[in-house]
């Protein structure tokens, strides 16, 4: 994004504001498809950024929905049910049936427990409607079911009229430390899928797999996503199991598309340390793995001074906690009141991972930008104090 657009965003919408560049999101998806060379389809995990779900729907093959709130967002955005995968570790019967009554077998549904399986089975029998289900395999935590349970369900449903097991769903964690772990997972899933098909005598058409690619948030981190995708494509090409792979990603697809704009509202020098206080803070922004500004994110300042008056600054947010440090010991040129920090790579999770209600501060505004459509206001700065008191 060019500085002119950044400055115009600040002028039009003020701070604190999130700016999501939908051209960048679209370009990332295209680049991922190129790197994957047709070896897999793409699913966007909308939990990474719900504001981008409409943009992403045009570019990916499906959207992973993990709550009723996300479902309603998709409904409002007019996303066709054929593109929805209804997922999530908690699926209350009433909520699940609300989705089923509305969209029935047009969506895909994941199964993370025997109860979820029972709810889907009961509905499909009662309405005599076919449902496509994906059995989530556990990676050793609270998500999904173990291999034996998955195999049992597959066996039970192979002759079923109504529940069709379309595939296995697997995700073991985000920001994986090594590419090796992803490639090993693909190999283990390959063996598992062949084994399941053999044991049950029925095909497993799809593997919905979340690789958990690492986004390099901080200075001195290398971006390994492209090489990892290419290595994955090679591994997928040589798999014994011949079904369709859908890669489920959120962070890796949209992190680059986000900018968090926050303005300097106070500066001081205390015992020789320069502090500036911005109008945002850790209640509005978070980088995965960050704590007390120990790592240095990518950022810019608008306007950027070139006067060469360099000083070290500790950049703090608005919260009354010593933990609200966005950056430490950062050398800045002639930092002044009303300067705006532009924190980069905040397109994934950052906008929802902050402790938004703490101290009853406002929520930041959210704006989308594309070259073709210009700016679209998604949400202006919103007060939260009403949720921290007896409602009127």
């Amino acid at each position, binding site marked *: 994004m060019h500085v002119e657009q950044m400055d115009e965003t600040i002028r039009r919408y003020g701070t604190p504001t999130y700016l999501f560049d939908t051209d960048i999101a679209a370009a990332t998806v295209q680049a991922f498809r190129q790197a994957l060379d047709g070896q897999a389809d793409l699913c966007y995990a909308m939990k990474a950024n719900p504001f981008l779900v409409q943009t992403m729907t045009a570019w990916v093959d499906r959207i992973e929905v993990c709550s009723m709130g996300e479902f309603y967002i998709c409904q409002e955005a007019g996303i066709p049910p054929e593109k929805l995968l209804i997922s999530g570790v908690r699926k209350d019967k009433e909520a699940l049936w609300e989705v089923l009554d509305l969209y029935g077998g047009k969506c895909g549904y994941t199964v993370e427990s025997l109860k979820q399986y029972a709810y889907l089975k009961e509905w499909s029998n009662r309405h005599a409607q076919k449902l496509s289900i994906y059995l989530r395999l556990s990676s050793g935590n609270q998500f999904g079911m173990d291999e034996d349970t998955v195999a049992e369900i597959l066996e039970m449903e192979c002759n079923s009229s109504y529940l069709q097991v379309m595939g296995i769903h697997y995700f073991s964690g985000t920001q994986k430390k090594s590419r090796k772990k992803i490639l090993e997972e693909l190999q283990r899933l390959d063996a598992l899928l062949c084994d399941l098909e053999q044991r049950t005598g029925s095909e497993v058409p799809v593997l919905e797999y979340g690789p958990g690619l690492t986004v390099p948030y901080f200075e*001195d981190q290398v971006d390994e996503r492209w090489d990892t995708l290419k290595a994955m494509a090679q591994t997928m090409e040589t798999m014994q199991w011949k079904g369709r792979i859908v890669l489920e990603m959120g962070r890796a697809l949209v992190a680059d598309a986000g900018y968090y704009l926050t303005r300097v509202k106070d500066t001081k020098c205390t015992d020789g340390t320069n502090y500036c206080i911005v109008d945002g803070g850790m209640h509005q922004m978070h980088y995965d*793995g*960050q704590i*007390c500004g*120990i790592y240095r994110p990518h950022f810019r300042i608008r306007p950027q001074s070139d006067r060469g008056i360099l000083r070290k600054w500790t950049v703090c947010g608005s919260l009354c906690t010593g*933990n609200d440090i966005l950056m430490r010991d950062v050398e800045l040129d002639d930092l002044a009141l009303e300067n705006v920090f532009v924190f980069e790579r905040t397109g994934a999770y950052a906008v929802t991972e902050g402790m938004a209600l703490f101290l009853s501060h406002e929520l930041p505004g959210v704006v989308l930008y594309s070259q073709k459509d210009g700016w679209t206001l998604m949400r202006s700065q919103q007060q939260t104090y009403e949720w921290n008191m007896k409602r009127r």
Partner: protein
Amino acid sequence: MNELLKILNDLDDSIDWEKETNLINDRLLDSFGVISLVAELGETFDITVDAAEIVPANFNSVDAMWQMIQRLQER
């Protein structure tokens, strides 16, 4: 110092703690590790490690951690 090394090895015994000088910068010790460590150090050495201390300079090496501990104990 031995107590510190024991805590570190309990955290992750695959790291050569005494040799490393870039634990934070090289991401050998990540933020989860720092949080666990801060809790343990607080209990073991009866110190308070506040946010101002959570900087790479204090955690990049065992020596740096030990210096921080001693400094905080004097408070």
